[in-house]
């Protein structure tokens, strides 16, 4: 296989597999936060900001794979 084709494949696999975990994690966070908000609507503001922060932390693995795949695509490592 050519190196160019290999690079494209590597970037796609990296991003695809890397996004799975953080997608599941963010879904769980959003679901739980909505549940808590529904149970106790007065806490909504505090819960929302905490939800955003924890979502951003969960997102980081996907962002790492994104950075790696961007480096594979756009940086000439050879």
């Amino acid at each position, binding site marked *: 296989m050519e190196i160019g084709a290999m690079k494209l494949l590597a970037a796609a696999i990296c991003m695809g597999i890397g996004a799975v975990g953080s997608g599941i994690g963010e879904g769980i966070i959003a679901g739980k936060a909505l549940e808590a908000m529904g149970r106790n609507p007065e806490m909504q503001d505090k819960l929302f900001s905490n939800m955003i922060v924890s979502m*951003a932390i969960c997102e980081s693995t996907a962002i790492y794979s994104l950075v790696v795949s961007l480096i594979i695509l756009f940086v000439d490592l050879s």
Partner: protein
Amino acid sequence: MNFEMPTLSLAPDVVFNIGSFGVTNAMLAMWILTGIVLLVGVLLNRKVGVVPSRLQVVLEGLITFFADNLETAFGSRERAKQFTPLMLAMFLMFFVANQFYVLPLIGDIVTGDGVKLLKTPTAHFSLPIAIAFVIVGMSHLLALKTAPLKHIGQFIKVGEFLKIRSVKDVPNAFLEFFLGLLDIVGEIAKVVSLSARLFGNVLAGELMVVIISFIAAPITFWLVPIPFIFLSIFSGLIQAFVFPLLCVQYVGGTVTAVQES
């Protein structure tokens, strides 16, 4: 209308040199943005009053937001007051810097050599990693200042060996020792994760708009990326909030772990 795919580069280009020190376009943009934030701050400070203007209300809300977060992280009002300006400045800087490419035309100014004059500063890895390094380093210096031996003892847990009373405790002590060593790796990972998060989000937002407007049909190339521009503005805003909040958590966690007996 036919236009070429713009060249995408992760490394910023050098615009001019001061001695042997190359000034890149990302640095230049950061200096200008810092100047703008400073100017707004100074102008606003002049008009500050008991009856607040709209911008003053927004900024006061931000100050109380960060002060409250810092107070819960540190557990003391004085420490929170010390750190509020730093975190707020970081938020304002990233808030402006993340939205830099939304400014029309400014990103397209090209110098004589064909080098872009200005580039989104946070889409260059040096800025986030430098700030993350400073923040994590600062938290460790503060912890070392308050209780040096205790802070080092959290990572190199020799104390666990002294607690051994019977043979049963030996494996536990070794486990604790290696967990302490792993925490050192965790501290390095903090720097990487903080910086890569901001860098990745901003760069991805920017590249997504570029790529989407490239693959759209020629007539609608200005219409199609609008939702993606909204998305990247939103993620830039979220990241500008999240970065200082995570810094608060890291600094607060490291410092209070040493303080409590």
